[in-house]
């Protein structure tokens, strides 16, 4: 089954003994079947909170406002039982660290059989046959033998392939890859990106890729959302974001990407300053304290969402259509 996804005015806060942390504020995103959506931003910007909310895996101290409409159902209002029924069936998640993603004392085959538990129509032998076929598809040679391996007997790259295979086995309408290459070395990263690109050709659901790595996003995605301090500050087609970024933060982020330098620099550029304290988010623009184009209203007035084209928009006082 495939359907569209739309989060509107989505806010998530974590209740802690030191007050509420507003990890996500008024986020609007949408995704349609067949699209690959990228979510990019520095550590702590709310990327993981966003996808964790989409996968209904937020911890118990999280409070959620707004709506996540998937295929006409508001995920934010579903009870825990129905949320669980969607996970591993409609929604699948590929985690960040393949080294710790699997249970160390159960074989790969055993775990992948369990992960297909929503498929009551299949017997154990059929499930194992599907696993063998899927492992072959994600490029694991000798799939039959690998099914009887324990996770620690596989390399990191291989484990991430298994994780992708596990997610694909559930035929999800929404596949979320949360920093799928962050824990891998460069060679493995290239292989996994290559694999994901191949897979998207015959996959017709939604793929959401989270990364702080601009190159990964540029290679894989159709559209990108740039996040900063819990807000989406700019969104649009990959080309628009990478060649016509309008928000000062996106521009600064691109300027810091070492892959885009043409000559060797003595010092890598950085964005001065640090993230605002999310227990008391600023009333104006979240980026204002670090922005070199900030002027009077930025500090006190929340910036408007400026529509730059059909799909390109930025949340900034300094941007004009």
């Amino acid at each position, binding site marked *: 089954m495939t359907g569209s996804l739309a989060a509107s005015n989505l806010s998530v806060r974590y209740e802690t003994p030191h007050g509420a942390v507003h990890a996500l504020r008024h986020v609007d995103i949408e995704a349609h079947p067949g699209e690959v959506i990228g979510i990019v931003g520095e550590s702590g910007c709310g990327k993981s909170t966003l996808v964790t909310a989409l996968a209904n895996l937020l911890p118990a101290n999280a409070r959620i406002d707004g709506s996540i409409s998937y295929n006409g159902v508001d995920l934010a209002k579903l009870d825990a039982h129905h949320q669980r029924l969607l996970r591993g069936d409609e929604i699948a*998640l590929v*985690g960040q660290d393949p080294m710790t993603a699997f249970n160390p*004392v159960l074989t790969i085959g055993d775990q992948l059989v369990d992960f297909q538990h929503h498929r009551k129509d299949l017997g154990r032998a059929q499930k194992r046959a599907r696993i063998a076929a899927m492992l072959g598809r994600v490029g694991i040679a000798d799939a039959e033998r690998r099914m009887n391996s324990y996770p620690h007997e596989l390399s990191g790259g291989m484990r991430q392939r298994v994780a992708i295979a596990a997610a694909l086995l559930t035929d999800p309408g929404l596949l979320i890859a949360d920093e799928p290459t962050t824990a891998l070395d460069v060679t493995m990263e290239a292989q996994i990106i290559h694999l994901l690109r191949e897979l998207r050709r015959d996959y017709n659901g939604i793929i959401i890729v989270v990364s702080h790595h601009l190159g990964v996003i540029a290679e894989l995605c159709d559209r990108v959302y740039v996040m900063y301090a819990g807000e989406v500050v700019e969104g649009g087609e990959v080309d628009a974001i990478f060649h016509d970024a309008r928000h000062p933060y996106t521009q600064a982020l691109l300027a810091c990407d070492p892959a885009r330098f043409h000559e060797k620099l003595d010092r890598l550029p950085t964005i001065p300053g640090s993230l605002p304290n999310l227990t008391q988010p600023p009333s104006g623009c979240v980026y204002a304290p670090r922005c070199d184009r900030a002027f009077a209203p930025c500090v006190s007035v929340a910036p408007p969402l400026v529509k730059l084209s059909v799909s390109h928009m930025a949340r900034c006082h300094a941007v004009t259509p």
Partner: protein
Amino acid sequence: MLAYAVKRIGLGLLILVLVMIAMYAAVFLVPGDPATVALGPRATPELKRLLIERMGLDQPVWWQIVEFFRNALTGNLGYDVWSNRPVSTLVLEALPNTLILGLTALTVALLIGVPLGCLSVMRRGTTADTIIGVLSVGVIAVPSFVVAIYSLLLFAVTLRWLPAIGAGEAGDIVSQAKALIMPAAAIALGWIGYIARMVRASMMEVMGEPHIRTARSFGLPEWKIVSKYALRIAIIPTISLVAVGLGSILSSAVFVEAVFARPGIGKLITDAVNTRNYPVVMGTVLIMTAIYVSITIAADLLIARLDPRVRDVFRG
């Protein structure tokens, strides 16, 4: 795995030898010679000399130890000083009662303690979790002989539901089972609490690991995550605890067997120590140590079986 097993068994044998040497040392460090202590101050020198000869105490200590092991290898653990019956026969008669008692207690403790620990984790932070926690700590704090005496008063003396003493009629399973209930419960009670706390603690740690999040992200039901994905890892410290604790279970069996006048190894040792019956003490300690060492080895091998990572460490 085989090399690992051989190594562990070799180490076990070494422990056995060291324990027996320590036992002999203890006997000779205690003031007064065993024969005088056994016979009392008014024994004639003639009688004393006879006993010393019979116990082999006139030989050098190292020779006694070597003799002991040489005999032990052929199944001869010496003879009871007073009845002259072979120690091996005495131990073999008493052992089944104690083993049944210890294993029943342990099985009951595991069957109740492990699910209670799991339940605590599944309902963490709720009233059920708090109640299980308070009860667990409560039963750990109560010594098994106190449970033994009070349950004896309540169920045997006041209510007359269960027999007060003995191990039941020979050949009558029902009577033997009835006689087993109270002693086993007295030992098991504290262990239920111990195991429930242990399982809860290690399970809470495992539940925070990323692979549990993976299992959740595939929508597996919570009971399956707890009972299959978390328990297989969380049970490992409990297995070590139970293996080490078996020593303490066997020593609490000494008290419990005394309270219920139940024939068994505990009673055999208590009686032998009271009558300075050294060959019986030595033989019984050797057998108990051997059992204890074998259980520890079995636990280590079981852990290696459960955790493929441990298995690989010892394979290489």
